[in-house]
């Protein structure tokens, strides 16, 4: 499976922290949002319930007012004073006027007993009119009869309730009322049909106005009342609606008996809570859903704030947790880096028993094993080197021996006994020092002793073809040098420098100390070598057949094996001028080595 680049390029620590954070972020957002939604829904539900209770209360109050008016109407209609006047039982103008006055007085007493009644008027088509005010001038009968309250009452049985309107019964008097009118026929059933009249009780509009006005529905909410015909009985913004600055969904309202509905008017959402009175008015509570959750902003803010707080807390925890988890891993990684660099003396200290702890223990075991193997390899290498050295040393003996013995034989044959003695003596000393006690390092003094014997032998062999001199500082005589390193160099100077030189040559061996190193030079004034020859010299293996003795290359190799690559041989040569071989080794005293 292809892993996402995002996760690949980051550490486990970061990955864990980021994953945790994202997880926590999502969870917190979901939780905060859900809790906000739930509590907002709960508040909303409460508000709706509260609104419908209020609306029901308004409905009950209004029903109460209207039924009061109805009972007043019923009471008035059964009064004997009114009945007397209406029936016209008294004859004569004076009597009739008296009856009218009594009836009016009765009506007035009823009106005065209640503040919510504006006026009570009785009118009948055959010309009888009476009101609670004797002095006020009623409008002419035809006008009264044509008014809505009269017509409505005539056209229906029972009580007719009008919408709110301006009552214009009296001259110069215009009051806002709600009219309750009722046919006389219902109570005076024995009367003939044409002697019909209507009783009107006007309810002060301010009663309804005050009742609705005091209802507080949130910040902006309000109550309005609409009658079954769809005309507004009460609306705080009635004029705005008529001016079409505001709209209400009256058709929706008229379709509902009771309950709540959300509507869109203009650019805003409103919640209508509708209840219907017994006589058909619909009381509508208008609330704004935004308003309903009065502390919506605060709830949002609180939800967001606590969400953010817990988020930060959780984030910190996740960062800490991922740190704690990856810390041992980091430690392990650090130790592995060390091991990579070659340090094997390490141990990862992780005590935990979990996967990482197991890993650490395994790592420790592995490192131990590697260490063991390493020391084993070192030992083996050492052994190999020693045996190789021994082999190299061993290579010298037979080669030189044959040549010298050949010379001795030759001298003996020619009867040069003195020389035979000298040569054999030198050889004997040479062999003794060569075989020695098997140690590798010897003092320079001994090596020089050895080389003197060697030079003596060679000088005799080549019939004094060269002279030699040794100039070595006394302070380095006690320093150690590898056994038998000078001999091949001198041999080389003889064979390649002096031997082919027609004149008598000279070999100079010079030794001195340079800082912590010892420099020994073998200088000859022979034919010299070109660079190609020098290169060959260092590369070649010991070439027994050519008789060139133990290879210079072997000397170089031994020095480097023993003292390291910094040391070894270097050559400086000029054709026909001679060659200088410089040998460098560290200045070591016997005690130190």
């Amino acid at each position, binding site marked *: 499976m292809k892993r996402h680049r995002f996760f690949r390029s980051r*550490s486990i620590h970061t990955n864990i922290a980021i994953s945790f954070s994202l997880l926590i972020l999502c969870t917190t957002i979901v939780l905060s949002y859900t809790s906000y939604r739930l509590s907002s829904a709960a508040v909303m539900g409460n508000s709706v319930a509260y609104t419908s209770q209020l609306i029901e209360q308004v409905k009950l109050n209004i029903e109460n007012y209207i039924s009061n008016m109805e009972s007043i109407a019923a009471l008035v209609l059964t009064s004997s004073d009114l009945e007397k006047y209406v029936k016209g039982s008294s004859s004569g103008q004076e009597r009739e006027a008296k009856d009218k006055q009594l009836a009016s007085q009765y009506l007035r007493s009823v009106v005065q007993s209640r503040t919510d009644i504006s006026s009570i008027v009785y009118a009948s088509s055959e010309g009888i009119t009476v009101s609670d005010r004797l002095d006020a001038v009623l409008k002419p009968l035809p006008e009264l009869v044509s008014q809505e309250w009269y017509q409505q009452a005539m056209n229906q049985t029972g009580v007719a309730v009008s919408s709110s309107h*301006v009552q214009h019964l009296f001259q110069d008097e215009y009051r806002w009322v709600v009219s309750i009118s009722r046919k006389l026929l219902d109570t005076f059933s024995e009367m003939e049909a044409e002697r019909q009249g209507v009783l009107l009780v006007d309810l002060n509009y301010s009663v309804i106005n005050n009742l609705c006005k005091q209802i507080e529905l949130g910040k902006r909410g309000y109550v309005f009342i609409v009658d079954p015909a769809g005309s507004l009985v009460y609306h705080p*913004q009635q004029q705005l609606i008529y001016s079409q600055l505001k709209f209400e969904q009256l058709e929706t309202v008229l379709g509902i008996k009771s309950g709540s509905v959300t509507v869109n008017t203009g650019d805003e959402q409103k919640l209508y809570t509708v209840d219907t009175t017994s006589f058909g008015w619909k009381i509508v509570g208008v609330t704004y859903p935004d308003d309903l959750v009065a502390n919506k902003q605060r709830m949002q803010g609180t939800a967001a704030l606590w969400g953010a707080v817990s988020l*930060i807390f959780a984030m910190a925890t996740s960062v800490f947790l991922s740190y704690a988890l990856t810390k041992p891993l980091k430690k392990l990684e650090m130790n592995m880096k060390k091991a990579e660099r070659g340090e094997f003396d390490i141990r990862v200290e992780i005590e935990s028993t979990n996967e990482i702890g197991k890993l650490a223990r395994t790592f420790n075991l592995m490192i131990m094993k590697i260490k063991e193997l390493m020391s084993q390899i070192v030992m083996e290498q050492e052994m190999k080197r020693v045996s190789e050295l021994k082999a190299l040393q061993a290579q010298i003996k037979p080669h030189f021996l044959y040549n010298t013995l050949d010379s001795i034989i030759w001298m003996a044959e020619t009867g040069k006994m003195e020389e035979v003695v000298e040569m054999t003596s030198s050889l004997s000393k040479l062999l003794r020092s060569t075989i020695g006690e098997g140690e590798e390092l010897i003092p320079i003094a001994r090596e020089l002793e050895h080389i003197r014997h060697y030079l003596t032998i060679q000088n005799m062999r080549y019939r004094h073809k060269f002279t030699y001199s040794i100039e070595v500082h006394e302070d380095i005589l006690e320093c150690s040098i590898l056994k038998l390193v000078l001999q091949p160099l001198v041999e080389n100077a003889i064979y390649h420098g002096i031997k082919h030189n027609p004149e008598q040559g000279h070999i100079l061996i010079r030794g001195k100390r340079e800082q912590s190193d010892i420099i020994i030079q073998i200088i000859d004034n022979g034919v010299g070598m070109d660079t190609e020859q020098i290169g060959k010299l260092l590369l070649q293996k010991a070439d027994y057949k050519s008789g060139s003795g133990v290879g210079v290359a072997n000397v170089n190799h031994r020095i480097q094996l023993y003292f390291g690559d910094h040391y070894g041989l270097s050559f400086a040569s000029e054709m026909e001028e001679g060659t200088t071989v410089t040998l460098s080794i560290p200045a070591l005293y016997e005690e130190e080595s």
Partner: protein
Amino acid sequence: MGSLWSKIGLSALLLFFIVALGWVGYRMFTNELGTKVRTIIYVPKTIDSSIEFWEVMKQGVATAAKEFGADVHMVGTDTELDVDKQIQLLEQAIQEKPDAIILAATDYYRLVPIAEQIKAAGITLITVDSGLNGGVSESFIATDNYEAGRKAGQELIKNIHSDDQVAIINFVQGSATAIEREKGVRDALSQNGVNHVHDTLYSNGSSRKAYQLTIDLLKNQPQLKGIIGLNEPSTLGAGLAIMDMGLKSKVKLVGFDNSSSEVQLLEKEIMLGTVIQKPFTMGYLAVKTALEVVSGNKVDPIMDTGSEFITKENMYTSENEKLMFPFIE
């Protein structure tokens, strides 16, 4: 390198959340500030509670204040003529540093300097009903008086012949409202071929003067068939003169505004009808517009609240009842 990046990443993440937290806190804080109640000072021409027009406008103002959650308080002079006092009240209003001032200017010219001061103080100025020379305010909310005048003229024309004589009784010379209304009337008449229009008479806002002028007019001009009164006293005076001279069936009267006296003239059929304004709408729109300007929204520099022609027949319809007989609590 890798660990450096992850450290940067983590720090960035943490920083992001701290910033987010800060933002939420800031939002909460500013929301508290955002719900700060706007204050508006409403200066009508008069606070005389017996004048229905201003009472109804006050209702409109109060309705809007409740709906939009603004804190509106009213200051004003006892009469519509006290220009100096109104200027003084506005000076005080500036000291209170409201968000907006709604002004019904008592004078078209004299209030311009104080209006400039209001604007200079960074307060939103809305004029209602009566505006200012040069349109200093952010918005002027009133009846389109030219249109109202046209309406009156057109309604009169329906009841007279084009060769009939017509008189106009205006209320004051030089008032912007008066000029606009008269222009509307004259344009409507001439466009419909009524060319016998008498020189304008001025009642100076007195019904007695209007009565006297009309009596003289009716006596001297027996051919007169129509009169248009351009405000309440002018109309009332003319109506009473017609009634007293018994010329109800001969001379048609169209008026302006509403009062119970005018309602009687309508009911007695002395008057054909009256053009009425909508002070509730004016008050409501003034507050709404002021709040919109304060919130930084663009508004129309002039808003027409409209007018209605009311006759005996339609005055008790539920639409017109509220306008004709405002319910004053």
